[in-house]
C-alpha cells in the first residue's frame, strides 16, 4: 500500500475475487474440522479475525495526535486483547486433548 492505490472498480473486483476464493477454501477447510474441536475452532478464528489490528496499526501510525490516531490506538488495544487471549485459550484447550496412553500417564 506504499504506492498510491487507485481505488477503482478494478481494485474492488480483485478484492471480490480474493474474497470468493477464500470463502471456498474456508468452506472445505472448516468441514474437515473434527466436531470434537469445534470450540478451539471458534477461539482460533476469533484470534485470527483480530488481524484487523493491521488496519488499526496503520491508523495509529502517523506522528502527532489526532482523532484518527486515538481510534487506531484503541483498535490496537482491543485487537491485542483478542490475539493474545484467543491464541492462549486455544492453546490451553488443545493441550487438554490427549490420547489414551498420554491421559493415563498424567493421572
Amino acid at each position, binding site marked *: 500500500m506504499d504506492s498510491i492505490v487507485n481505488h477503482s472498480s478494478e481494485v474492488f473486483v480483485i478484492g471480490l475475487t480474493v*474474497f470468493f476464493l*477464500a470463502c471456498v477454501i474456508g468452506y472445505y477447510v472448516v468441514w474437515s474440522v473434527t466436531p470434537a*474441536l469445534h470450540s478451539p475452532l471458534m477461539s482460533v478464528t476469533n484470534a485470527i479475525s483480530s488481524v*484487523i*489490528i493491521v488496519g488499526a496499526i496503520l491508523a495509529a501510525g502517523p506522528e502527532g495526535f489526532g482523532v484518527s490516531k486515538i481510534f487506531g490506538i484503541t483498535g490496537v488495544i482491543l485487537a491485542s486483547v483478542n490475539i493474545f487471549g484467543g491464541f492462549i485459550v486455544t492453546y490451553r484447550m488443545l493441550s487438554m486433548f490427549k490420547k489414551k496412553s498420554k491421559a493415563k500417564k498424567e493421572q
Partner: protein
Amino acid sequence: MSSNLVSILYLISAFLFILSLRGLSHPESSRVGNILGIIGMIIAIVTTLMFKNVLSYTEIGIAILVGGFIGTIIALKIEMTALPQLIAAFHSLVGLAAVFVAASALYDPLTFNIGEIGKISKSSLVEMSIGTFIGAVTFSGSVLAFGKLQGTISGNPIIFKFQHLINALIFLFIIVLIVYFVLTQSTSIFWIIVIASILLGFLVVIPIGGADMPVVISMLNSYSGWAACGIGFTLSNNLLIITGALVGSSGAILSYIMSKGMNRSILSIVLGGFGGEQPNQNNTDNSDKIVKQGNAEDAAYILKNADSIIIIPGYGMAVAQAQHALREMVDLLKKEGIKVRYAIHPVAGRMPGHMNVLLAEANVPYEEVLELEEINHDFPMTEVSFVIGANDVTNPAAKTDETSPIYGMPILDVEKSETILFVKRSMATGYSGVDNELFYRNNTTMLFGDAKKMCENIVKSL
C-alpha cells in the same frame, strides 16, 4: 518496503491462517496448527509495522502490551465452563475494533490511501459503512450474548409486540443512512449509523433464549469475520479479506451444524422466542405415571454389573462442574473391565464442542468421546446409558410425536439400551419445555440430585 513484498508477506500470513484451521482436523495436528496461526499473526503485524507511514512505535508498542497483558491474564484465568461467555466477549472486541478502524479511515483517509477528507471514493464509503454496520451489530449482539451466558441478564427470550417490524424498520433506516452517508461523507451520519447498528444488535439477540446460544455464538463468530472483510475491502487489504472470509464461513458452517442438531431453521432461531425456561403448557398430567427413583448405591450396583456403559453428558454436567467426579467414577468402572464411552450430541452445552473440551479437561482420552453418528447404532448393544445433565437430546418424542416442538431433532437413541440412569436435579423439563417419556419407563431409574455430588457418592459406593 515495496508493495509487492508486503503483498507476499501478507499472502504467507494468510496461508498460515488457513493451515492453522486445517490443523484442527485432528487433535494431534491441532497444536502445530495453533503455532502456525501465531506465526502468521506475527508476520502480519511486523510487516505492517514496516510501512513507511507507521512511525509511532512507542504508542503502538504500549497499546499491544496493554491489550496483550489483559488478554493473557483473562485467557489464563478463565474456567473452561465459562468458555462460551469468553468467546462472546472476544467477538464483541473484534466488532468494536472494526468500528474504530472504519472511523479512523473516515477521519484520516490519506493514511489509508483512500482519498482526502470529504473526497473519499464512493466505493470505499460503501464498504466502510457496511464494515461498520456489521462490526457494530457484532459488538452489541456479543455483549448481550455475554450477559445472557454469564447470567447477568436473564437467559429467557424477551419478546415484545412488533419486534420484527421494529428490527426491519431500523434496518431500513440504516440503509437510508448509509446512502446519505455515501453522498455527504458526514461524520455525524457515520456515528448515527454506529448507534443504530448497536441498537439493532441488541434487539436481534434479545429474543433468543439460552439454549439457542450455540447458534447465536456461531453466528456472531461469522459476523465478526464479515466485519473484518468489510474493513479489508475498504482498505483494499487482501489479508483482511481472506481472513475475514475464512472466519465468516467458519461461523456460518458452525451455525448450520448447530441448527441442524436442533432440526430448526436458522431463520426461526434468529427470529427467536424459543429456548427459555417457559412453563410447559403442552404437558399432559403426569401425576399418575410412576417414576422409579434410586440413590447412589443403586446406581453403583447397576453400573458395576454392566458390561458396557455409554455416558451422555449435557449442559447440567457443565453447570455442576461434575466432569472430574464423573471421570473418577468411570475410572473405577473401567478397572472392573467395563467398556465405558461418552456420546456427545451436537448441541450439548452452550457452544459447539463445549462438552468435548470439558471432558478433555477432566483427562478423558478423546478416543472415548464419540459423536452422535459414530455411537448411535451402539445403544441397542449397550447395557446402561448414564445420562448426566442432558434431557431433550435423549427424548424419543423427537422421533415419534409429530406434534412435539422438538420433532425431527436428531437424538441419541438412549431408549434402545437395556437400562437408563438419569442424573437430574428435578423432574423439570429441558429447554424445549417438553416432558420426556423416558422418565416413566420401567427400565429407567431417576437419580435426583446435583450431578457432581451424585458422581462422588457413586464413587464412594463402588
